[in-house]
């Protein structure tokens, strides 16, 4: 903790004084979020690591709540006068200076560390990182004569966080994220296609191993044989088998956002009136989990002082919890679930997902595919979106196969799938016992960018609308 006071050039007394200023206009809660983030990124292009990018970002955000309403300001320095000005600006959300609360004495929070940095970057310096990236590019290029270009990035972010609030919570947190991404461009007979692969963890340099490269190279290799054979299928309404892992995008888009309680607090989510009700098959349980070690969505303590935790959103088919920050939790009269997250000190926290996944059902992917007479199987995705109120969601499928008479046949690609959240959830009629979390660079863009992850067992959705030829 002392390291953080030194980094931000503050004391406990100074923080208490700022919280007092923040509450000076009658606010009923205040918090202060110090952040120092450094980012380094190396890029491999045309066979050479010829660009480095580094960022240093430092500042403090101060929030005041008054009956659920928010005042927020930030400063890019921790000079006392600038922080005091930010505190007084945020205080302006309230206008009852006679009702001044006194912040509680600060006490240090502790939580399990879900992302200890085992490999120090000083032991894996820029030259080693450059060689690692170069080696990765060479392994990918060697996969096929069709690969004409490889762009690869190795990025490392490190955030030091110091947080305090008027309830007396005080904590510090060290948050790493290391990401490795590659895009391969392939050409054959005048046609061009591309494949992307990524891994991202809250880890340090220990993530950069040959076995990680084995896994990523194998993933690209598995898709190459089908890339130029893949066609767009005939579009329309049909059964969709979603492969284990990255199919968790279905949960993120179809129900995850609609469970974020800021939408429900406003009454605008299609799930706003469904608490405690059966919304899908009893074989389905969905969790949003901050506790997975080194996961991209892992959280020790969230950005408003609530311990990270595992939250059952759906348990055996029943809606059991929304995803709350302090504002929505107070609105519903429940405890916050540790979902208050923010992109940086420049943003106020809002309810965000962490790692959202479905727990295991029974049976196997093969049995599910075998049960479908005509439909599609999908296993790689790029992006998704949802309309919270209408419930209509989409996700873009990069690869998959037609299913004909229970067998995978023609490779398919480049189709958008659209469905309605509650209907799609209720239409999940088979869940396999192969749930796994996908460790790609999932980033959610709800107002602010936030690292998340998702997972899924193989499932059968009996009806979705698949884009395609007519």
């Amino acid at each position, binding site marked *: 903790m002392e390291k953080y006071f030194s980094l931000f050039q503050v004391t406990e007394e100074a923080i208490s004084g700022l919280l007092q200023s923040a509450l000076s206009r009658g606010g009923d809660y205040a918090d202060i979020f110090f952040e120092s983030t450094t980012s380094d990124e190396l890029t491999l292009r045309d066979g050479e690591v010829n660009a480095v*990018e580094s960022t240093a970002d430092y500042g403090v955000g101060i929030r005041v709540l008054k009956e659920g309403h928010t005042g927020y300001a930030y400063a890019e320095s921790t000079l006392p006068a600038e922080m005091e000005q930010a505190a007084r600006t945020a205080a302006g959300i309230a206008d009852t200076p006679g009702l001044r609360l006194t912040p509680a004495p600060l006490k240090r929070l502790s939580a399990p560390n879900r992302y200890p940095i085992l490999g120090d970057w000083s032991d894996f310096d820029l030259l080693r990182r*450059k060689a690692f990236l170069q080696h990765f590019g060479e392994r990918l290029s060697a996969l096929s004569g069709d690969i004409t270009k490889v762009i690869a990035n190795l990025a490392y972010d490190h955030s030091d966080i110091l947080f305090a609030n008027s309830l007396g919570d005080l904590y510090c947190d060290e948050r790493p994220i290391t990401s490795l991404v590659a895009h391969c461009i392939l050409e054959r007979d005048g046609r061009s296609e591309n494949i992307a692969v990524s891994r991202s963890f809250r880890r340090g340099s220990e993530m950069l191993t040959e076995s990680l490269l084995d896994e990523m190279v194998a993933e690209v290799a598995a898709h190459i044989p089908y890339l130029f054979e893949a066609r767009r299928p005939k579009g329309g*309404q049909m059964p969709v088998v979603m492969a284990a892992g990255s199919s968790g995008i279905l949960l993120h888009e179809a129900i995850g956002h609609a469970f974020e309680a800021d939408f429900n607090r406003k009454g605008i989510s299609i799930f706003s009136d469904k608490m405690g009700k059966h919304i899908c098959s009893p074989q389905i349980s969905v969790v949003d989990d901050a506790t997975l070690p080194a996961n991209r969505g892992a959280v020790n303590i969230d950005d408003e002082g609530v311990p990270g935790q595992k939250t059952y959103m759906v348990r055996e088919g029943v809606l059991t919890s929304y995803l709350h920050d302090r504002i929505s939790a107070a609105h519903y009269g429940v405890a916050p679930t540790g979902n208050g997250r923010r992109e940086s000190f420049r943003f106020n926290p809002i309810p965000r997902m962490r790692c959202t996944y479905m727990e295991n059902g029974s049976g196997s992917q093969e049995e599910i595919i075998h049960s479908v007479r005509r439909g599609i199987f999908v296993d790689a995705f790029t992006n998704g979106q949802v309309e919270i109120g209408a419930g209509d969601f*989409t996700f873009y499928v990069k690869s998959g196969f037609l299913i004909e008479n229970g067998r995978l046949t023609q490779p398919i690609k480049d*189709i958008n799938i659209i469905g309605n959240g509650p209907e799609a959830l209720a239409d999940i009629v088979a869940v396999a016992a192969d749930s796994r979390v996908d460790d790609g660079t999932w980033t959610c863009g709800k107002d602010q960018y936030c690292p998340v992850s998702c997972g899924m067992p193989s499932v059968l959705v009996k009806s979705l*609308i698949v*884009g395609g030829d*007519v």
Partner: protein
Amino acid sequence: MIQFDHSIVETALQMAREEGATQARIALERSIENSATVLDNQLDKMLSSSGSTLFIQLYIDGCYGSFSTNRLDPDALRDFIRNAAASTRLMTRDECRRLPDPALCYHGPAVDLQQYDPAVESLTPELRRERAMTASAEIFGRHPRLLSVETEWGDTVDYSYTADSQGFHGETLQTTHTINATVSIRGRGDEKPESWWYESGVRLDEAPCEGCGRRALQRALDQLNPRRLRSGSYNIVIDNMCSSKVVAPIIRAISGGSLQQRNSFLLDALGKPCFSERLTLVDDPFLPGLPGSRLFDNDGIATARREIISRGVLNNYFISDYYAAKMGVPVTIDGPSVLRFVRSGESPEKVLNLAALLQEVGKGILITDFNGGNCNSGTGDFSYGIRGFLFENGVVTHPVREMNITGNMIDLWRHLIAVGDDPRNSSRWTIPSLAFEGVNFSGI
């Protein structure tokens, strides 16, 4: 108010030289942002921020690095640049990384592109709250289906000063004023249709609050009781709120990064008739008062008016200095400034607003928003979710839902049948409503 400041840039440039940079470019970006959000006629959020970031590009004996920091005190900055220089030296040499030919850079004359409205200085927290409240109050409590109204006023001032070691200096100052409204209403069953409207511009008077809430409410009400349609081939009209979605893949495909990496469906297409003759697309950086107008790009290269596509023929790529050197072709510019359509094959007097376009097309689907989807940058194959309306005899009949359009970008643009005259000037790409024929829809 924003403080104009050249000294930190000059200091950083000197530090870069002292650390051994052969060449360097430094840019200071400062911004002030303020907003007020009203939820259901109550002030919900007040945000206030100001920040400064220094962007540093170092070129050291053929090695390149790009850096940014908001820690601007001299000691911290010197340490940062020293470390940046050390990192840069470790990169593999790339002789294409260098500052551009000074002859291509902007050297004046100073032209006022009217990017700054001093009226922003008159705004106070109370006025911002009033403006958001005005947009809310005109609908809150005034319709039985209304579930939620959220309105937000926002204003920003952005300042930048860029200098490089070859003597280029450039400065910009811009304002943006925006009012937006998001409305949710009670629909069929559990459905809660949502819609939005916004007004935005460089000038304060380009973001009128009156009418913003009403437009959002009407757009939400228009979506009541949507139907799913059968799959088939339909003519489509894309309105001016979302038509840029089908322009973006073309711009990405003709940018230097995509071309150099051969990840473009418009490789080797210069001079070829790729699209409908009705498509003439101009990049015009000198339109006063439009966001996006600029005198120089991020490399300092002077902008120019360019006809990107003329009657369907691709005339220009967007090639920055680096990618021009990589590909051995002339530099153009790093990307579009203000994109606008020029109607061709139509009498300039002919009115072609959205209603007229629907009349002209007769029957089809009006797309008012996209819901996800993507476009394969290498092939141009696309598939997008849409929201919109069926129209017949030029008149909207009912909303549609859960439908995808699917096709190929080049093929789509070959089937452009009409270009509207209704672009909104609130964004950098002023794209009007557009009509295409024979687009594949997937529904039930």
